[in-house]
């Protein structure tokens, strides 16, 4: 991977009042690369995603797109660049049906009027490729199960022609079959030459599809590893803090208790 990364974060920082959620974070995603972003709860993974997606503009640092510095201040900015995001909290409109949610903000039109037929057709095709069972593409999102909503949110990110797809814990609510489908999908995205950022707590999933693992710890980079040459223990050590792991922490606790 010698070409310039399609997306790169340079020294990005983000504060929420008293919380320093991100400090000097670096991240690179190349075309055709799957980067897994891992870290403990509250490490700042979702915050990082939201800065790229324009939900929370960055405080310091720079975002580079295909080698050029860009400013992402609003979700529209990220969309125009070609970033598609599946948020951890999904962000769907409960009162709209599946088709309307899939095409929200980028509706298909025919002579200036919404083209419901084409949208419905495309929605069915898309959902069929994801092998998800949904009662009907015309029922409100409110009547779907958590996993069905998650697949709708994932399908949503594939509409339009994104160059980078960000998936924030996309398989958290999914069953075995659907998880496998999503992992297949991630591989298909890579084959199509897209950059993918995948956030997951599941090491097996990460090792199955990712090329690179970037570790966040307490809002800072804590190592970037090529998956092939790295053991799971190394990654977990980086997630929990290189010098401390579950074993050392238990030891510390017993030592403390003994005092």
């Amino acid at each position: 991977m010698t070409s310039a990364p399609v997306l790169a974060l340079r020294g990005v920082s983000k504060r929420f009042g008293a919380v320093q959620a991100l400090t000097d974070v670096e991240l690179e995603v190349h075309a055709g690369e799957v980067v897994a972003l891992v870290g403990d709860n509250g490490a700042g993974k979702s915050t990082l995603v939201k800065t790229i997606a324009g939900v929370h503009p960055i405080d310091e640092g720079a975002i580079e797109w295909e080698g050029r510095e860009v400013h992402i201040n609003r979700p529209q900015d990220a969309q125009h660049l070609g970033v598609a995001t599946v948020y951890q909290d999904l962000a769907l409109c409960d009162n709209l049906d599946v088709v309307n949610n899939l095409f929200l903000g980028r509706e298909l039109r025919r002579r200036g009027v919404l083209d419901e037929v084409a949208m419905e057709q495309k929605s069915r095709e898309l959902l069929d490729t994801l092998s998800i069972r949904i009662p009907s593409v015309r029922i409100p999102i409110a009547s779907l199960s958590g996993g069905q909503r998650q697949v709708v949110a994932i399908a949503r990110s594939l509409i339009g022609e994104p160059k980078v797809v960000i998936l924030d814990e996309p398989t958290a609510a999914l069953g075995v079959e659907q998880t496998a489908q999503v992992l297949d999908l991630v591989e298909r995205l890579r084959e199509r030459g897209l950059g993918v950022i995948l956030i997951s707590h599941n090491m097996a999933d990460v090792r199955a599809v990712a090329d690179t693992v970037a570790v966040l710890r307490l809002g800072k980079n804590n190592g970037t590893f090529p998956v092939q040459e790295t053991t799971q223990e190394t990654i977990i050590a980086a997630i929990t803090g290189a010098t401390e792991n579950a074993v050392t922490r238990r030891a510390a606790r017993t030592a403390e208790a003994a005092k």
Partner: protein
Amino acid sequence: MSNDTKTQASAPTSAVDPRLLQRESGLQGYLNEFKRKIRGGDLGSLPVVVGLLVIWAVFSFNDSKYFAATTGTFVAYYMVGVGLLSLGLVFVLLLGEIDLSVGAVSGLAAAFFAVLSVNHGMNPWLAVVLTLVGGALIGALQGWIFAKIGVPAFVVTLAGFLGWQGVMLWLLGSTGTINLPDSGLNHFLSGNSFFLGGDISGGYILALLAVASMAVSSLLEQRRRRSAGVPFRPTSEIVLRSALLAVGAFGAAFVLNQDRGVPNDLVLFLALLIIADFVLRRTSYGRKIFAVGGNIEASRRAGISVSAIRISVYAISGAFAALGGLAIASTTSAAGQAGADPNNLMMAIAAAVIGGTSLFGGRGRVWSALLGMLVISSIQAGLYMLGLNLDIQYMIMGVVLLAAVVVDSLSRRTQKSSGRA
């Protein structure tokens, strides 16, 4: 549905859940689906249509004169002005917000128009345009304060409710009332000018147009959907819907023809309803309004400019309020202090809610303004005929509004428990 079987054959796991109760084809399937919707709390227009029939039955039982020729005209006469306020409010309610200023804005608009056209002798058409633009600007200002500064809409428009009424009184000055000539646009909006000069064919032509355009557009859509392989409405359902519309439209034309015909202001109101319905359901702007009413954060992340939607919706509400104010002033032939009657505001909100637009946002249709106003003015006509005092009238209207809100809240609860909201 042929498409479902096709996908089932091609993919091992189909997109369609076999547990889902598929709608059977034909009329029977339509009826079953209808029953399921009702049980799921998706009441649609059912409560208001039933309510309307009950109201008519009760009043005509009490006094056979209720079905006299003039009642229809009376209903149409009072429906349009407040109905226009209500139509603008539907947009605001879809966002899950409220606009308390529409009554005051309508009074101010009438006064503004009267000052321009009567006191300053301005061309009435120019004065109308300025009035409507003024209404939209007032709405946009309120929307801007709400969207950009973050003051709750309730408070902003409450301030507007007081403030614009003050501006209206200041404009009207010491005289307090400016009489409007019964000519031109004022005559058109007064409820005393009739479609095709009140010719008996006028109402039937309109009814025929409505039914034919609905049937044709439904059939065209059915054909497009069928050829695209997505589920479509069965012909029996289209026939049933068109027949129901025909009963309503020709019935209304018949009733109005008993007296003097279809008032032109009612024709204008219906035309605006059709346009507003089209904008809300068929354009991406309308889709964005529903989206913001459903989930603000999701809309923002989908790239929708929430502030722009909010400001524009309040501008729409202000423009409809101004037009409604002109209609109300035209029916009384004067712009006066009563123009900003707070009752108009209450009636407009009540009409939208009675007609089935939710106070919680994201659910509703513009037709609720029409249906709700039909209910309200039918009750008013009846109470007026029975010679009941204002005290009783207010109590009854209060109960009707409360009933509508209770239905809204209950159906929302049922929808939640049956997974539809």
